[in-house]
């Protein structure tokens, strides 16, 4: 018997449900080595779910996946990747503040030598050789945020080429590419084929499918409806399989069309163009009594259009409601003008999951439900009850939290919310997505009723039969423009479906997307800081000779050292995406423990190391406690550290009995001012600490993972980086650094009071932010923080030398922090 080799990837009878909807129903698919297999289907057919299962993002509810004959089950995308499955998603999660090269490397795992030392030359080399395949110069050292959409796709594909992929999954890869780039892609795909890689290719572009694919599988409503060789089918056949199903009895009776034609025009949109370029020159009208369908692929600009009309996006053009030109810049104005918009993403944009049905229903119509100046619970409940009955919402009552309802019923509630505003124009975005069949029919009936009552209904949908069955007219969107207008009764479904599909290799889309402006490069804040510091030093030296004395300078350096160490502690936590305002108290507590140990009657050779170790341990434990409470309790770090701030302070007072700690052994006090090999002790410690932190954050895998988590927690999770481990390390390091700073200060001042360290964390955070650390995490440098600490110390020194009263110190700190935060905001705005 001749045994054929097993297919490279085989899905057997795979199913997957989500609450309220079956995304995949017993789908089988096989991909052979060296084969290009196209996956085709409308939106909602199940393609995304299938891809997510193959790439390890989702697990199937039932069915098996086999890789080269062996059964596999992945629990996360990293495992799938290691098995050789490389997926190029349409929308990738990026570490926007990290370099392109590092982004590429993180997906595979950073290349490291022993102990976690990152091999940067390898990272850049790999990235460059991957990018060289593109034939276009691309700087892999630049932050990934600066890549345009096309460049992002290209680098992803190039990175996939570079890895030892056995299976390549491409999700709409050409949506942002020019003709030239697409040709390059095809060449690469054929190269893969020759190398024996199996390619799963998802696309709407018929020409590409027929040019590239060996076999095609068509999905519809979560089921496989056809699978076979590309040679066995043609364009018309494909569309028929994608779309066709026996049409239900048309709800739209022919006689109604005459009646509609004489109804007043409710909505007239004239040449509306999106500011961000997602749609252009769209004109549309809808009359009272009419249900107008908007059909098109995701990304064709339909949702953006409706949102722009509703005031959620900025656009130029004219919108007329009932023949009156209306200016709409915010949803509140839209509602006042008689518009309503049911959003596409029910979970994120529609419902208030923890609130009651009542709250969810009345939120947009509160103005009409007041009695006098106050809100009226009675009227709200009545209105909610009315909607529940009218829409047939299955629930326990208006006080039930909406999260407990099924998807279909949730959708009805949101629909009820908008119906309550008595809109003249009702726009709905995918109103029956994720809704069971029964509720679907009810919603359609309600919409028709509304139209009959005099409203104009605009229904956006990717479900062609739904559009055909319920709409008087269908407007087709393609690549941000209107591709055609049809009357369902008079047109075949295939014509309408074909109108929505992009033609050839859409140069128009690529050109449009390439127009997105490249954000300006962030100034090296280090440069600005260095300039400011030089300037300040210059002015000080010129106006106050006392500045340049050895005494003053060594004092300055001593303070700078303490601030540098503490600011690094604050920075490390902020870089990881969190914040720790208990650092000042931790500093004091650790120094308190250390100080007490120092006073024990043992030889200094014993007590000093013991005190330092103990202090560091206290700091680290304090930090770990903060992190644990935030992670396990799922409470924001600011609240946790707001609490531990007082706890640690309280512990210090308990330890010292509220007394000042003094009389420390002289062998300890003063080492910070002593000279070691000619260098001031404090400075030495400060520099050494900075060096260690610099090496950690910049050159060790754990440090890079810290930056990754701060840059994008979502992307980090997708590449298998654990935020919990990162936060534990970051907070521990922050606490230990605070302890170190405390012990240093103890050596400098020789005393510790109960109030020492109060408000220090604020200044540390200020120094970090001034030094270029982004308050949201993922961006910043050790050098910048050092400069920030230096600037702060210089300013205080200047205030003393210029004999400005101490009352201004806090103002300066606060002012600097405010300025730094504002500058950070401006840069973030510019980068958007």
């Amino acid at each position, binding site marked *: 018997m001749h045994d054929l080799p097993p297919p490279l990837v085989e899905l057997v009878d795979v199913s997957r449900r989500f*609450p309220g909807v079956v995304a995949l129903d017993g789908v089988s698919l096989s991909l052979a080595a060296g084969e290009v297999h196209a996956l085709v289907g409308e939106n909602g057919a199940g393609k995304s779910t299938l891809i997510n299962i193959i790439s390890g993002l989702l697990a199937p509810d039932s069915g098996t996946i086999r890789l080269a004959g062996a059964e596999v089950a992945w629990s996360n995308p990293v495992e799938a990747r290691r098995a050789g499955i490389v997926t190029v998603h349409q929308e990738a999660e990026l570490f926007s503040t990290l370099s392109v090269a590092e982004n590429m490397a993180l997906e595979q795992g950073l290349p490291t030598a022993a102990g976690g030392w990152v091999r940067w030359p390898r990272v850049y080399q790999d990235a460059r050789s991957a990018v060289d395949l593109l034939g276009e110069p691309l700087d892999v050292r630049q932050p990934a945020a600066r890549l345009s959409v096309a460049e992002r796709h290209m680098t992803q594909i190039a990175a996939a080429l570079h890895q030892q992929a056995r299976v390549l999954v491409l999700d709409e890869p050409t949506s942002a590419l020019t003709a030239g780039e697409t040709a390059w892609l095809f060449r690469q795909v054929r190269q893969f084929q020759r190398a024996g890689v199996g390619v799963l290719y998802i696309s709407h572009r018929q020409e590409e499918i027929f040019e590239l694919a060996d076999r095609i599988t068509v999905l519809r409503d979560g089921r496989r409806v056809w699978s076979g060789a590309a040679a066995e089918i043609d364009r018309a056949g494909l569309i028929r399989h994608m779309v066709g199903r026996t049409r239900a009895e048309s709800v739209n009776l022919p006689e109604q069309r005459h009646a509609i034609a004489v109804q007043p025009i409710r909505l007239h949109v004239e040449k509306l163009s999106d500011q961000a370029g997602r749609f252009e020159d769209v004109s549309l009208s809808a009359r009272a009594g009419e249900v107008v369908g908007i059909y098109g692929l995701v990304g064709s600009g339909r949702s953006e259009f409706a949102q722009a009309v509703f005031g*959620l996006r900025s656009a130029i053009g004219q919108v007329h409601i009932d023949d009156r030109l209306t200016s709409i810049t*915010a*949803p*509140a104005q839209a*509602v006042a003008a008689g518009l309503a*918009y049911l959003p596409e993403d029910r979970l*994120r*944009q*529609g419902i*208030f*999951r*923890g*609130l009651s049905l009542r*709250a969810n229903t009345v*939120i*947009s119509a*509160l103005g009409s439900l*007041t009695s006098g100046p*106050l*809100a009226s*619970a009675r009227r709200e409940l009545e209105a909610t009850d009315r909607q529940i009955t009218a829409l047939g919402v299955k629930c326990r*009552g208006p006080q039930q*939290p909406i*999260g*407990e309802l099924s998807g279909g019923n949730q959708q009805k509630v949101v629909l009820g*919310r908008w119906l309550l505003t008595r809109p003249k124009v009702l726009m709905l975005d995918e109103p029956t997505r994720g809704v069971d069949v029964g509720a679907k029919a009810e919603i359609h009936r309600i919409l028709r009723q509304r139209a009959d009552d005099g409203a104009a209904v605009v229904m956006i949908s990717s479900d062609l039969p739904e559009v055909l069955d319920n709409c008087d007219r269908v407007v087709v969107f393609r690549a941000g423009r209107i591709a055609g207008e049809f009357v369902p009764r008079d047109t075949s479904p295939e014509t309408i479906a074909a109108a929505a599909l992009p033609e050839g290799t859409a140069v128009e889309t690529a050109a449009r997307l390439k127009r997105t402006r490249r954000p300006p490069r962030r100034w090296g804040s280090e440069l600005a800081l260095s300039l400011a510091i030089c300037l300040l030093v210059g002015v000080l030296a010129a106006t106050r000779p006392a500045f340049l004395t050895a005494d003053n300078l060594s004092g300055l350096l001593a303070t700078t050292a303490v601030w540098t160490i503490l600011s690094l502690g604050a920075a490390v936590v902020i870089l990881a995406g969190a*914040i720790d305002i208990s650092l000042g108290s931790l500093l004091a507590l650790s120094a308190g423990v250390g100080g007490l140990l120092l006073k024990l009657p043992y030889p200094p050779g014993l007590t000093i190391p013991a005190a330092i170790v103990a202090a560091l341990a206290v700091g680290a434990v304090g930090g770990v406690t903060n992190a644990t409470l935030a992670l396990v*309790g*799922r*409470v*924001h770090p*600011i*609240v*946790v550290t*707001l*609490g*531990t701030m*007082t*706890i*640690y*302070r*309280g*512990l210090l*007072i*308990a330890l010292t009995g509220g007394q000042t700690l003094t009389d420390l052994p002289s062998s300890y006090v003063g080492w910070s001012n002593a000279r070691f090999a000619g260098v001031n002790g404090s400075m030495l410690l400060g520099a050494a600490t900075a060096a260690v932190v610099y090496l950690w954050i910049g050159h060790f895998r754990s440090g890079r993972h810290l930056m990754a988590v701060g840059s994008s927690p979502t992307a980090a999770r997708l590449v298998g980086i654990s935020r919990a481990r990162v936060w534990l390390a970051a907070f521990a390091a922050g606490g230990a650094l605070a302890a170190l700073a405390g012990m240093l200060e103890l050596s400098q001042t020789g005393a510790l009071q109960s109030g020492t360290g109060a*408000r220090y964390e*604020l200044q540390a955070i*200020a120094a970090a932010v001034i030094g270029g650390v982004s308050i949201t995490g993922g961006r910043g440098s050790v050098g910048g923080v050092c400069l920030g600490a230096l600037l702060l110390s210089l300013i205080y020194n200047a205030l003393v030398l210029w004999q400005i009263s101490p*009352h201004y110190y*806090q103002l*300066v700190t*606060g*002012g600097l*922090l*405010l300025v730094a*935060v*504002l500058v950070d*905001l401006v840069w*973030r705005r510019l980068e958007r």
Partner: protein
Amino acid sequence: MTAISLRRLLPMLLPVTLGLVAIVLVVSETSRPAAVLNMLRPWGEIGALAAMMTAIILTGGIDLSVGSIIALASVTFGLAWQADWSPALASGAAMSVGLLAGAVNGTLVVAGIAPLVATLATMAFYAGLALAVSRATRVSGLPEAFTALGQQSWLGIPNQWALFLVVWLAALVVVHHTRFGRYLYAIGENPLAAEFAAVPVRWVQWWLYTASGGVVALVYTARGGAAVPDAGAGLELQAIACVVVGGTRVTGGLGGLGRTLLGVVVMALLDVGLQFATPNAYARLLLVGLLVIGVAVWNERWSSAPGEA
């Protein structure tokens, strides 16, 4: 009233238990009822701040600059008084400064800076401003009528508690019985959905923080007393503690004035009870910290949205 369900009651269990413990502590020391009443005075102020803070926390925000705004108001009053303004005018000046400071907070938040970060920065800035402007000196010679405000009672209720009552009632009405209040819950629960639901999110936030500044200034002027540049330091933590201990969720969308009242009562009684039980300042600090964290964690655990794992 919401249907009584176990899930909703559980978060209340902890603060109520603590409240009972506190009452026992205090009652066992009622040999000095007048002393107790006096010790409770500062908590009236904190309660008023907590009532206002509840509204902010409901939207998922926070205002850390509250203590510093008190300092600013205090300093403004002192300066106005030194410039020979009448107490009434000086109070008006203090109120205006408070409103202005709150408006700056509101503008920063609306511009896109996280409330946490924005009010952390303004906390430092306002405190510094107060110190700088007053050159760290107290203003003396304030009118008797003003300074005595802090010691007086109105119908037997200490002034501070009367203030708390007024502010709390006003907050209760606004948060639970007006459109504005409904918007707060929506914004806290899902800010994106609020935008889509035509809630004027930015307008609400701006007025919220501005009002906070005004209420804070009101609290200062009602307390009378000195014009001291570091007045109010640390009050924000205690106000936030009251809100959190009462059971309002830190991430917003859940809670209310009733819970805050519970929180204020618990914190106040515990504080007073502890002052009798032990003279240690650190015990009180430890308690506040532990309570804030413990209750916040407890609440998060028990109030995860239905349908979540």
